[in-house]
């Protein structure tokens, strides 16, 4: 590892502050500050999706993963795995059979990135939440924390990776669309989150028979980069309805914010008690 001196000292200073929690913020910098840094996302329209798995296959090919062999089937829940970053599932709903796509939601305030102690899980300013191999130590705390159970770990490997959708980050910074969007006809739509919401609202307004009047992802878990249009409520499509509507990293804020005060209060208090008991005992026997 080559770190130059300035960087080294800077990191020491940061460490000092972080140990006592001064830098602690409940969430990694996840605010969209202005239009220029607006997050990209993907709108998935399950009313249009025909479950052809073209996106699954393209994804597997693009990321060097084995081609999926099973098909979406009612009654079978396919899950993303260390070999599959996205899956299609089929549900029998009140509106007939509906396909739904599952992959990383690219949360606005990702629990995985807040959990990661090395910033290997990272919310990029473009929007995708990516995983960086050289930083990860494989603690799997991201898996514990992600409310959607997205990050998957290669248990069979001696140099394991975390597998999850990264929205084809390398393509996005080159100005291209993610492979799944490129492959799909209309069911996947790529754009800034603002554009996606506008597009979703337009579709709902235009063909109200096709959709329920709500966009999954607009608020859930504090808002996600992946947005869903569907003819039925998310509960019917296998989504966990207990996932809270607000940010997950916020759950640890109280604890993290209390750390600096503990570092000031507790030692002072201890020293105070120590002094008080000392004077009471005067000079008689006093070990250590």
């Amino acid at each position, binding site marked *: 590892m080559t770190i130059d001196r300035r960087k080294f000292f*800077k990191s020491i200073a*940061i460490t000092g502050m972080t140990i006592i929690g001064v830098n*602690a913020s409940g969430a990694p910098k996840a605010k969209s500050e202005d239009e220029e840094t607006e997050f990209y996302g993907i709108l998935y329209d399950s009313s249009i999706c025909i479950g052809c798995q073209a996106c699954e296959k393209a994804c597997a090919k693009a990321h060097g993963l084995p081609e999926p062999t099973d098909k979406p089937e009612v009654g079978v829940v396919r899950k993303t795995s260390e070999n599959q970053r996205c899956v299609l599932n089929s549900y029998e709903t009140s509106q007939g059979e509906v396909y739904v796509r599952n992959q990383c939601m690219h949360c606005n305030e990702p629990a995985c990135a*807040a*959990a990661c*102690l090395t910033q290997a899980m990272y919310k990029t300013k473009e929007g995708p939440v990516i995983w960086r191999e050289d930083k990860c130590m494989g603690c799997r*705390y991201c898996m514990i924390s992600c409310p959607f159970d997205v990050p998957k770990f290669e248990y069979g490997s001696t140099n*394991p990776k975390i597998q999850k959708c990264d929205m084809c980050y390398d393509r996005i910074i080159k100005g291209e669309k993610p492979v799944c969007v490129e492959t799909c006809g209309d069911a996947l739509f790529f754009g800034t989150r603002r554009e996606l919401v506008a597009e979703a609202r337009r579709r709902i307004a235009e063909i109200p028979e096709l959709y329920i009047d709500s966009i999954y992802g607009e608020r859930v878990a504090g808002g996600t980069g992946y947005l869903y249009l569907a003819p039925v409520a998310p509960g019917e499509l296998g989504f966990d309805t207990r996932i809270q509507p607000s940010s997950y990293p916020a759950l640890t804020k109280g604890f993290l914010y209390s750390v600096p005060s503990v570092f000031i209060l507790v030692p002072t208090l201890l020293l105070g008690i120590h002094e008080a008991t000392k004077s009471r*005992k005067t000079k008689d026997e006093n070990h*250590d």
Partner: protein
Amino acid sequence: MTSPIIPLTKTAKDQSTWRFLMNELKPRGKWLTPFNLISIPIILVGLALIVIRFTEGLGAVSNINQEIPWGLWKGFNVVTGVAFAGGAYVLTFIVYILKVDKFHSIVRVTVLNGFLAYLFYAGALVLDLGKPWNIFNPIIGNNFGASSVLFLVAWHFLLYIVAQLIEFSPAVAEWLGARRAHKLLSGLTLGAVIFGITLSTLHQSGLGALFLMASQKIHPLWYNEFIPILFLVSSVFAGLSMVIFEGSISQRVFFRKISSKNRESRNSLVQSLSKICAFSMFAYLAMQFLVFIHGQHWDLLNTPMGYWFLLEMIGFVLVPMALFFYASRKSSILLSRVAAIITILGIILNRLNVSIIAFRWDAAVHYVPSWMEVVVSITIILIQIWIFRWVISRMPVLDESPKWAQKASH
């Protein structure tokens, strides 16, 4: 500094240091004790499994899966073990801050225990990491996940190990007969104690805070926003119960090592410890009760998970609490020990509940540790006991410090 810290002048003495160390590394006493006969084969199998874990990947020995990514090594060796090591911060608080001198005779052994525990739990953590070679990323370099609870816990862990080493170091100096070093190190004790207690309150609660983001993954009877505080309070009686339990064993095993004066005072010590346990358990139960009322989960009590919860709260907190009260009233050592053992089981139950059993209790595939995970978990503890024993029989931990050291510290 004019004279060297270790009172051996170079050259000629170098050799004698070496001989001294070699001598001390040799085992003392009988080899074929029942403990050795049982522990050695287990340790050998455990070490072989650890080799397999690194050559074949985690999946080869462990049953953890994509939904339950933390298994026995994290849930038992780390999360549970740290609670038991809590005795060290509680006792250093009583002895060095409140200056209740009667606990002085057991503070060293408790700190030693805590120090070894942390060291080996850090070891368990490394085994569990997928990419352990990146473990220094959050410590050096510029990869600070400052918003991560685990980041804080890791750092506090590390610093606390150092603080405990400083707290224990006078014993090492006495063993080596290093007077100057002894003086210097003893002077650092108070600082290390204050720092150590602060770090302990933070990482004991931090271990609970780790699970705050898993809000809908943990059964609502165990998940609440107060997990950090509950973890902190329960670490008080978890640690002290361990002190009582461990004391009852070392009293038998290291009988000759314990000075007669200390032996006599043991009874009154256990009695006081029982009282502290009882009161902290009372506070803990009251908090659990408030949290329960607050959560409005009455309907959940009448489910299998609800019975499980009641078993933990009544059988393993309320009952031993009553026992502790009764034992301290009757000054019965035996009852205290029974209470301590029940409490220890209760803490294991509680920590495993939060981290493993009630974690994704609704998952299709439940996690049950493989025999290999169990063996490795036990191996870690056994090696720790071996080292503990080695230190106890050489350094002045249970017995009195040498005369010169006692005088110096007065």
